[in-house]
């Protein structure tokens, strides 16, 4: 097995401050958003088994039952979360990636 990068190159990049900033910030965002997504979906499933009848009631003044409204909110949230991740990557992570590549001479 021979990898493309020599171990000196790898170590050089690993100790590069921009690279550390990039990977740390991206890891926080990745795991944070993943946890939000999973909590949202499995929390909803938990809510269903705990309080299913309450979800069928309409909210005050509205015609749409509470459970449906939550489901619609979740659909919107999924798009918003992916949109946020992509936007953050385009505006922040991509710039840092270019910086690391320049600094490490690639």
């Amino acid at each position, binding site marked *: 097995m*021979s990898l493309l990068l020599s171990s000196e190159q790898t170590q050089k990049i690993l100790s590069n401050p921009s690279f550390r900033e990039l990977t740390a910030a991206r890891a926080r965002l990745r795991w944070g958003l993943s946890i939000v997504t*999973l909590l949202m979906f499995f929390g909803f499933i938990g809510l269903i088994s705990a309080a299913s009848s309450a979800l069928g009631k309409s909210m005050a003044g509205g015609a749409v039952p509470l459970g449906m409204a939550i489901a619609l909110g979740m659909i919107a949230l999924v798009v918003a979360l992916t949109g946020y*991740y992509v936007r953050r990557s385009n505006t922040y992570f991509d710039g840092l990636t270019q910086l690391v590549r320049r600094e490490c001479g690639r």
Partner: protein
Amino acid sequence: MIMRILLAAIAATVSFSAHAQATPVVAGRDLNWVAIGMFLLIVAVTLLITYRSAGRTKSKADFYTAGHEITPLQNGLAIAGDFLSAAAFLGISALIYATGFDGLIYALGFLTGWPIVLFMMSERLRNLGSYTFADAASFRLDRTSVRLVAATGSLVVVLFYLIAQMIGAGKVIQLLFGVNYLFAVAGVGLLMIVYVAVGGMQATTWVQITKALLLLIGGTLMALVVLWRFDFSLGHLFAEASRVHPKGAAILSPGGLFAEPVSAISLGLALVFGTAGLPHILMRFFTVSDSAGARKSVFYATTCVAYFCLVIPLFGFAAMVVLMPDASFFNVGAGGQFNKITDLIGGPNMAAVHLAGALGGPILLGFISAVAFATILAVVAGLTLAGASAVSHDIYGQVIAKGNAPEAREVMVAKIAAVATGIVAVGLAIIFENQNVAFMAGLALSVAASCNFPVLAMAIFWRGTTTRGAVAGGLVGLFSSLLFVVLSKTVWVAVFHFAGPLFPYDNPALFSMPLAFLVIWLGSLSDRTARATAERRAFDAQFVQSEIGIGLSEGNNALAGVAR
């Protein structure tokens, strides 16, 4: 009774064939010339696409990834076209028609996999691999054994998914166009073989884009017609639906399908993490030029899938209001009674199609039937390509030929594998025509979540993963999900006719997926070989490449470099 309907509806969603009766030509009752015209047009357009792609399918990169030259928007549409099967379109609207709210939860599960794919998979996969997800899984691990496990997982997922889709396709086409099941299955098989073997990823991508656009147009058109019928008021729609549905207002709140938490969580895990392990979806990330493209394509795909999660419930609820009071949509018994769900002509899967006919006349009926047909074609083509790539790139190219196969020969093997995959799928679809295959699509998702996903995620994210752990965990995930499904109600009782299931839940993911992770962890932790030490040390280089994609700019030789 309620349980029986629920089971039928679940079966309908996953394989959408269990209850399709062989009553040819739905709703229009005569040949629908709009449907047939559209159908012929779709066949002609897709064959033209294939013909034009044929000249551009010479190299491996062309065949597997359309030369990495697909744009993010095109790829996003193609991913949606790859993912939104007829089971999603017809099956989920049928599930909502039968159960109301519960069907919506199912749709949400399908959607929730996408952010996970984006955050964890798409960019890293693109940076680490070139053609299949096994590239990334075996980046720093033993390329023979890890690749074999990944390729086996891919082939199992592809084959079960493909058979389920083919049987469903045969029954739907039989119903829509009045063609004999045998001809329908063989016709779909022939088309998908031609797309893949002749046009490779280029043709497959454009077939999927065409389908996604048709589905977007058809879905929007129908949503507008439905909303117009109910004065753009969801309140009207829900009120009228709960008045006519046998379950009454209960359709507006969660019912039996997700009431039992263990089953609900298990199904949820399979839906969410299965998406992140589907080989035909993961493969699409290599068609764009870089990781930024992969990331953007997931956003476009997620938006499309989310849009369908919004419009498909409209069809299900509107179908209740429009179809249920009208006996002409049902197989009426001698005494004039009929079951408002199971006796729908063609089965509950036809709810959306009947609705199109009832609201928009033969033109909308024909259009929606043709959209359903295009939907089937795009999904089976994507699956066939993923299966062929697992055989030619992973097994032949990397395991047997050790990466030294001449390019032209590997492409030839891929084309032969595509033909073979298609023939096997058609054969099995004919053999299983009258079998209960409800378990197949569920099994495919469980294997994806319990074998492909854990191996890939652990190889990418955990430094400690070694070949021994990955191979053992992948195999345990694969065989435990197969075993649990065989012992569960859907096979042990429904297929083998035993009195009671030995495994009490329909979906094994809650057990098989953690088991796979556990075995990878233990198997790696206890691995004290020199190879394991080298593999852990190689994590640094893999980490750097997965984060900033070094090597990609140098002509996609990242993998070739590893393989040599």
